[in-house]
């Protein structure tokens, strides 16, 4: 990969003849675009991770969980279920599952809470990636919270009917 073909955004060079030369070229391309993508993601994910940690240290999770308590009743969940939900929003699925372990939930409640968390989680870091792709990370975070709660509410209602 030398010469004029090296300009970023230029069309890919014609594939070389033969099987192994093609494999070698594609391997090289794969490593290059893998490192490029890794770097793209790292640039947005690391600052977002810092923000997430700071939010956790400042006690924002407890504060948000208190605010989310009334919503839990509408989903047929105990108020304490707000904690894993908000932990999922700010941190990630693994942290949410960890704090879910502390609650005593029925199978239906586990499923309803799982739906809300599966749709909305890791909002800061994944929002940063969406921002990198050209979308509004904050709006998408809001969308995932609202759509996740709505999905959980609908699921709770439907499961009640079945």
């Amino acid at each position, binding site marked *: 990969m030398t010469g004029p073909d090296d300009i970023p955004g230029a069309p890919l060079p014609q594939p070389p003849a033969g099987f192994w030369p093609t494999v070698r070229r594609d391997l090289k391309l794969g490593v290059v675009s893998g490192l490029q993508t890794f770097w793209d993601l790292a640039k947005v994910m690391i600052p977002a991770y810092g923000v997430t940690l700071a939010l956790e240290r400042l006690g924002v999770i407890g504060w948000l969980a208190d605010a989310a308590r009334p919503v839990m009743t509408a989903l047929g969940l105990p108020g304490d279920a707000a904690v894993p939900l908000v932990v999922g929003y700010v941190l990630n699925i693994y942290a949410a599952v960890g704090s879910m372990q502390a609650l005593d939930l029925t*199978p239906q409640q586990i499923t309803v809470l799982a739906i809300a968390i599966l749709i909305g989680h890791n909002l800061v870091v994944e929002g940063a990636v969406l921002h990198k792709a050209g*979308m509004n990370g904050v709006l*998408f975070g809001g*969308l995932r919270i609202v759509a996740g709660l709505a999905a959980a509410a609908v699921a709770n209602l439907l499961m009640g009917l079945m």
Partner: protein
Amino acid sequence: MAEFLRTFAGGSLDLLWRVFVIVVPIMVVLELFEGTRGFRAVVRWWARIVRHVGLDERSAAPTLVGFLFGLAYGGGVIVRDVRRHDLPRRQVFIMSVFLSMVHAIVEDSLIFIALGASVLWVVAYRILWAALVTLALTALAAHWLRRRRRDDTALRGGPGSR
């Protein structure tokens, strides 16, 4: 503060490592197999499914990566493809909405299934929900864009005045 920085540094390294060991192999496999008949068949099969939410064949591969591995990794491929062949913004929007609602279908779902959540609700219902939200938001965005464009032409003195 020193403790915060230590956590941040350790967590960042952990995050970078996890992204690295997933992103680089995904990209190498993509570049190696993107041109092969088998890979194209899989992408075409997947494109026939995601066509129903408004995604075309160019968006099928990044959508598949996000659906299987996670939003961040799908987002990485989206960034690559926007750079490489100018994916239209409309396609990026549809992909972002769809992947916001459902991604990392195996890993994320399994965590909650292990906790006792119902497979049917966590997987099938979530995919259905994602499709409905994507269709609704795409229609809403198209409507909103049309209206804004109409308002713009009205401001400039009505249609045909340019």
